[in-house]
């Protein structure tokens, strides 16, 4: 077939061959630039149509928090909800929780938000409504988190205030959760946690409400302790959060708390604690004759210290380890056997006996002193008759047994020998032994101050109270 004598593509003579034997062009399957022009016009038209769509749409499409899951890891999303906890201040960032009611289960509808380099006045509090944009982190097995980097990505609508009372909150369940409330109360307790302190506010009817103060607020923002004391009367205007179904006020700023007055604390002799005083806050004092550390239930932690004031038969004073650690190093060192102490606590009953729980936050009055229980030279006189008595013994370690404590390091059972050939067992719990810098070894002479008790199936042992009650003599 003859079409053209010269190829229109390469210009060479084709001698009638189709397609061109030089370049393979076939004129019968060609198209012109008009085809490309048509495509350009279509693309341009569609592009302009999409531009008008851009102009017409401006809404944000938030993602329901309950639908966020690991498949969205590293995505960027909008979330729309109310702040349910926070702010928690850290170095260079603030975190808070947002709840959007997208699921019945609160945890499923809540996400933690990490806000980096927050600008001033752009930090939300519990109760505020937020619209936030950021990158999701939701790896499998880890709580989901939204990360915000720009202040413009966080829009805050401040919450309206609701006047209420502690009893209202306790009785109305969740209806006031995640709202900003104002109420009055009296500080009646303190429970330190690793990252925060929880104060107990009480009203005159005995209703209690927790006040959560994140440590970051004191450390990074206010740079001073909050200074609340037991029996301070306060007015709190802050958001109401919840933890495990329990309502909890969440302080975001010291300005939200106003101490209006302080109650006087009644001073009572320690031996006079009775049922009429149970639940009351009182002040007691006395000489510490023995400090007994109590271990935790699962590990080597110390849960509390029991102080015996003046004698072993008075009601004990208990100081939780968390509160103990709130004391300055100096006061921690002073709080030992022999010191005279004055402190404020709450009277309670424990296993049928009265005791005083130091609730803080007042710092106890401490005067240094010395005390050593009576010394027993002849260990064979240490029998069941001396049960619960405090003794001081000095002897040579002739035996050092391990008492199994499951997966934990063993307790120790030392056998001390006196100069008369008699011996007595000294039981050192593992949480004390593991804290000893120079634990007693066989052959050494040690002095032990402890109470006579029974332990690990041994009917008569001397158990020291704290590490300092065991001292190496030679």
């Amino acid at each position, binding site marked *: 077939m003859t079409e053209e004598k010269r190829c*229109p593509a390469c210009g060479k003579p084709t001698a009638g061959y189709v397609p061109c034997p030089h*370049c393979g*062009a076939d004129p019968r399957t060609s198209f012109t630039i008009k085809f490309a022009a048509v495509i*350009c016009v279509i693309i341009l038209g569609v592009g302009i149509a999409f*531009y008008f769509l851009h102009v017409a749409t401006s809404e944000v*499409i938030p993602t329901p928090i309950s639908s966020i899951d690991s498949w969205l890891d590293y995505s960027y*999303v909008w979330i729309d909800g109310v702040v349910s906890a926070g702010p928690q201040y850290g170095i260079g960032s603030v975190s808070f929780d947002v709840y959007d009611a997208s699921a019945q289960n609160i945890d499923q509808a809540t996400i933690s938000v990490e806000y980096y380099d927050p600008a001033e006045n752009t930090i939300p509090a519990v109760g505020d409504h937020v619209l936030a944009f950021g990158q999701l982190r939701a790896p499998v097995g880890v709580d989901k988190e939204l990360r915000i980097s720009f202040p413009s990505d966080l829009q805050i609508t401040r919450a309206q205030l609701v006047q209420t009372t502690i009893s209202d909150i306790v009785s109305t369940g969740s209806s006031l959760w995640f709202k900003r409330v104002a109420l009055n109360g009296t500080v009646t307790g303190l429970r330190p946690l690793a990252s925060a302190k929880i104060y107990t506010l009480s009203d005159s009817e005995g209703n209690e409400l927790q006040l959560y103060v994140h440590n970051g607020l004191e450390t990074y923002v206010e740079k001073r302790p909050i200074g609340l004391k037991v029996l301070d009367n306060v007015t709190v205007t802050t958001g109401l959060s919840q933890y495990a179904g329990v309502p909890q006020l969440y302080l975001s700023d010291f300005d939200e708390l106003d101490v209006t007055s302080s109650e006087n604390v009644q001073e009572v002799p320690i031996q006079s604690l009775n049922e009429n005083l149970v639940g009351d806050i009182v002040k007691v004092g006395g000489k510490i004759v023995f400090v007994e550390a109590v271990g935790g239930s699962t590990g080597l932690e110390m849960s509390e210290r029991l102080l015996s004031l003046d004698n072993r038969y008075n009601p004990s004073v208990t100081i939780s380890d968390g509160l103990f650690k709130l004391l300055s190093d100096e006061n921690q060192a002073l709080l030992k056997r022999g010191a005279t102490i004055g402190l404020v606590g709450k009277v309670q009953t424990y296993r049928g006996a009265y005791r005083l729980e130091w609730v803080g936050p007042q710092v106890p009055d401490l005067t240094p002193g010395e005390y050593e229980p009576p010394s027993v030279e002849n260990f064979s006189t240490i029998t069941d008759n001396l049960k619960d008595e405090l003794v001081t013994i000095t002897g040579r370690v002739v035996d050092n047994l391990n008492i199994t404590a499951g997966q934990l390091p063993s307790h120790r059972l030392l056998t001390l020998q006196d100069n008369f050939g008699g011996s007595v067992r000294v039981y050192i719990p593992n949480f004390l032994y593991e804290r000893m810098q120079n634990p007693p070894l066989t052959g050494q002479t040690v002095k032990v101050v402890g109470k006579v008790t029974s332990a690990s199936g041994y009917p008569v042992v001397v158990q020291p109270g704290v590490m300092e009650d065991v001292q190496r003599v030679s």
Partner: protein
Amino acid sequence: MGMETFVYIFYGLLGVLIGSALSILPSLHPLNFAGIGVFLYLMFPIDPLALMMIFMGMLVAYSIVGTVTTTFMGAPDDSTMYMVFPNQKYLMYGRGYEASVVTGIGALGAVLMLLMIAPVAGIVFPIFRKITTPHYNWVLIGIVIYLLQSEWPKDWGSRAKTKLGRLKDGWSSLSAGWFVFFLSMMLGFIVLNTPIVPADRAFQNIMPVFVGFFAVPWVLTNMISRAEIPPQTVSNRFFVSKKDMLRGTTAGFFGGTFAAYEPIITAGVGGVLAGHSMSTQGDTQFMVSGSAGRLAYYVGAFFLLWVPLLHLTRGGMAWTSSLVYQPRTESDYWLLVSAIAIAAVFSFLILVFVSRIVAKLVAGKSFKKVSIAVLLVVLTMVFGFAGLEGLAMMTICTGIGLIPPMFRTRRLNMLLGFFFPVFLNMIGMRGDVLRVLGVY
């Protein structure tokens, strides 16, 4: 919102101009400039959305106008290596301008397809992502195994007298392919773990590798040619069938989109997969699918960042630009789609214009001289961006890059091998392998 946002379209067109100018330079890649762009943004703050539009324009221009270097200068990169052979053939037929414009039309076709899926992208992609997220690992290793297994021998028929002799002949190209894969993998372990380029240029760590793998070997093989580039026909008529255009564009678009979505997979890999699935044949389909795939890959990866409810960060440009700006709303998305469309048309017009000029410039020139000039430019670029260390790296990679043409094996194996360590990192095995190699 009023029409004041139309200014962003102009930023996109500015990006097209910048990208077009840079695309003419062989061996350059938009990613080389993304890092510099962010640096400049930090020094001279402009509206971050404007910068994103500039990046988009650069990507579109690179995808469309960038074929000029492949067609007329014979300097391909990883995404154009499958087009370079037919494009160069057309150049030697005197149809270089036609090849350039036809590939540009293929890219326009990809843009049209992108516009068609834009309204449903926000539904389809999140569904796809939700279902496929736990399966990335085995899918990726499956792709690597498939590509290695699907390389067929390219022998001219063995004349060996024995069966073993014939087997040896037949496996020479396949063995070379495996060897190239292994060498590239070793190189990947070293380069991606302990970069050789200076620390202040570490963001250009991979540029010498890609230049060495693809551009320099091709230019060197061109340099041994004694051919003269014939006069080029510049006409408004193109002698390819629309059916081939459609088939090539469709294959390229789906391959490029798959590569854009899947981590680690690049445009070249996506193109091969799509070509196999749609049985791509013939020069026209290869050229068009290559350019469509390139656009779908580079622009598509950037596009995925903007899809509402997806915001998937894929590709270097998206990762780099997300440091500056994150698309937030559906409105941002439609703005980008609109800008891509307008930028694509503008880029095509530039392509037609530039192709005409370059076609006239190269006609009658010795291919060897053109290749020498291209090589000098390439060396200057590598030295400028990555220093002497980069040149050394490029030289090593050129050695590897010369194996495929010499032994008739796939260049794709270099890509697969080089990024294999990245894949091992995804499945948590990279540290173990690095320890064995002693580079950890």
